[in-house]
């Protein structure tokens, strides 16, 4: 090689060598990928949340890489399946931090798995973007912990606001025994008074109950009830809805964002007509007005997801989309994937439009969504329609 450079003079040679070195250095920096860690409940009881989350991360990391990556570097996804077990979640988070040396972690499909990891990311100082619902994750604010979905408290507030608009103020609650149900029931009871809502009845059912007529009969016999709210998750709400119609109850029935999927309408059939619930814009992507800020984002995500996986899009996958995009946004803003800089940038995200809504983070709010992020939907002719 040197012999072929005979005629060149020394200076040119030196310059060439220096340039080569510089390029090599640049290349090796470019080759070091940005590592995105994830621990999700891909299998187990919460798999209907974790599976679309995982698919979404894979899909969009691939797309981002095809578009040249972030900060000139490729993204690398390291995802583990915690099967909904908090202990496994903690071990995998430790693995992501210590072994895989990730720059940022997306995950915690459930509140339990997220909370199990919080002490770890706080002491290891790694930004965590949780995909779980409960308020405890961001309240009190934890320096390194952020979350993308709405909270159950916001759902309660949205529902109560809608009730007030319909001049309904005396409400009966019926909820199940799962984590989601219990958390949301507590939040609804907590904010009821402030929202001007009086809770007249508070009924419960078991996770695997197949008939809720007894509880609903009690509600029917409670004088003065103007509306029924079912903060529930899984199959229970569909059964409540069917029993509700069978008993011939005429007052409005509200469900939660926990059953905001086509599955609920399918399970409840005719009985679902007229049921209202708060949900993310993603569910009604195509019927959003053209002027809606979120429309391009949610329609884009919905089309990408559905054409790739041939299955219906869910808001849960949307949470993962938001988590990943917020991390990317923060890295671009920080100009680096350094953990501390990404954290600071995350806290300064303003006006990011995601599937869950418009995100405005601050030092006091590590979720950054307000009530406008929720849309009130009503089931009409077996499909969701926007309540104006």
């Amino acid at each position, binding site marked *: 090689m040197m012999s072929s450079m005979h005629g060149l003079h020394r200076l040119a040679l030196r310059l060439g060598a220096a340039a080569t070195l510089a390029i090599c250095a640049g290349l090796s920096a470019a080759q070091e990928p940005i590592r995105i860690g994830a621990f999700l409940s891909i299998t187990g009881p919460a798999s209907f949340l974790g599976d679309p989350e995982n698919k979404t991360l894979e899909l969009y990391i691939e797309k981002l890489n095809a578009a040249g990556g972030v900060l000139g570097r490729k993204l690398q996804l390291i995802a583990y399946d915690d099967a909904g077990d908090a*202990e*496994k979640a903690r071990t995998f988070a430790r693995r992501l931090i210590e072994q895989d040396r990730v720059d940022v972690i997306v995950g915690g499909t459930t509140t*339990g798995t997220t909370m199990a990891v919080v002490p770890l990311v706080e002491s290891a100082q790694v930004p965590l973007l949780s995909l779980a619902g409960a308020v405890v994750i961001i309240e009190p604010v934890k320096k390194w912990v952020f979350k993308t979905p709405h909270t159950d408290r916001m759902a309660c507030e949205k529902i109560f606001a809608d009730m007030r608009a319909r001049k309904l103020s005396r409400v009966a609650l019926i909820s199940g025994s799962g984590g989601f149900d219990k958390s949301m029931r507590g939040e609804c009871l907590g904010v009821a008074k402030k929202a001007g809502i009086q809770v007249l009845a508070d009924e419960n059912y078991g996770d695997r109950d197949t008939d809720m007529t007894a509880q609903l009969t009690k509600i029917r016999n409670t004088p003065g009830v103007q509306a029924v709210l079912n903060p529930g998750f899984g199959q229970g709400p569909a059964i409540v809805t069917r029993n509700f119609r069978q008993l011939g109850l005429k007052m409005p029935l509200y469900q939660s964002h926990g059953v905001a999927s086509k599955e609920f309408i399918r399970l409840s059939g005719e009985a679902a007509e007229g049921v209202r619930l708060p949900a993310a814009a993603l569910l009604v992507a195509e019927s959003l007005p053209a002027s809606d800020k979120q429309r391009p984002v949610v329609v884009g995500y919905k089309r990408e997801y559905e054409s790739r996986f041939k299955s219906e899009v869910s808001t849960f996958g949307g949470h993962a989309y938001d988590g990943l995009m917020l991390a990317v946004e923060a890295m671009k803003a920080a100009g680096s994937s350094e953990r501390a800089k990404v954290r600071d940038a995350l806290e300064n995200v303003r006006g990011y439009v995601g599937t869950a809504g418009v995100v405005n983070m601050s030092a006091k709010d590590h979720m950054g969504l307000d009530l406008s992020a929720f849309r009130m939907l009503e089931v009409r002719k077996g499909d969701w329609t926007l309540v104006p």
Partner: protein
Amino acid sequence: MAARFATPRAGGMAALAALIALLPLGLRNDYFYDVAILVGLNAIVCVGLNLLVGYAGQISLGHAGFFGIGAYGSAILATRYGWPPLAAMLAATLAAAAIAFAVGRPILRLRGHYLAMATLALGVIVYMVISTEDRFTGGPDGMTVAPLAIGGWALRDPRLWYWVVGALLLAAVWFALNLIDSPTGRALRALHGSEVAAEVVGVDATRHKVMVFVVSAVYASIAGSLNAHFSGFITPAKVTFLHSIELVTMVVFGGMASTFGAVVGAAALTTLPQVLTPLKDYEMMVLGAVMMGTMIFMPRGVVPSLQALLTRRRDAAAAAAAPAPRPGDGQ
């Protein structure tokens, strides 16, 4: 030589102690320590459970319940009521022992499927109480647990936890081995063989069964308490029927009626899911295949089957060398 080390007592204890002492050389970071600690905690439960299942021949499908009593007892007393963690752990252990004693007498009169059903129900009841009493337990979303503090000093570093759990595992194994070699242990094995025959020769079947049930509950409870303090967070997932099954599987996988088998089973089934993660979707299939293969080719579990293999080899070698008198059986 190898067979000598595979035998219980001295050889096995020394090997286990050496393994625990040398293992940190291969643990590159806190993640490895984390997994090693979970192996240790599961092994403690399994050593206790093996006394009941392997030696006394009584099935328990509710041991996650005792694990849960320990974990949540410690968590609630130490976190919600500000007890010193060690006192909370002691109280939780006593509670687990008391419950095992009170419940043990009536249910250990049952046999076979009936006993399995009764212990299963016990575990389910504990699970239901824990997941519904959310004022104390945080419900299905779980609760934060205070670290294990002694005086003003909190044990947080996984590298220190490793030594604590390692020492406790050694103590647990030592106690189990001594119990098995005592008259009580022989009585238990007699019960396993035939309860009627054991009673005919004067073994108080009920008393022994209840005792070993309580001992195994105490093992599970202590491991549960430690697990809660180590994790810093506990959810009812650790108290489910599925976890009970996992524990029994570890015992059966490693080898029933083998204390070191219980340790091996816990180690294998705790680390395998971590090792198999690169397989992604195939992880469960491979894990299932490994377990099925082990049960088909080593029906008595890993350790007893290997022991038998070694003994056979040695016998064959001895027989080939010279027509010497047959050495005694390893176990």
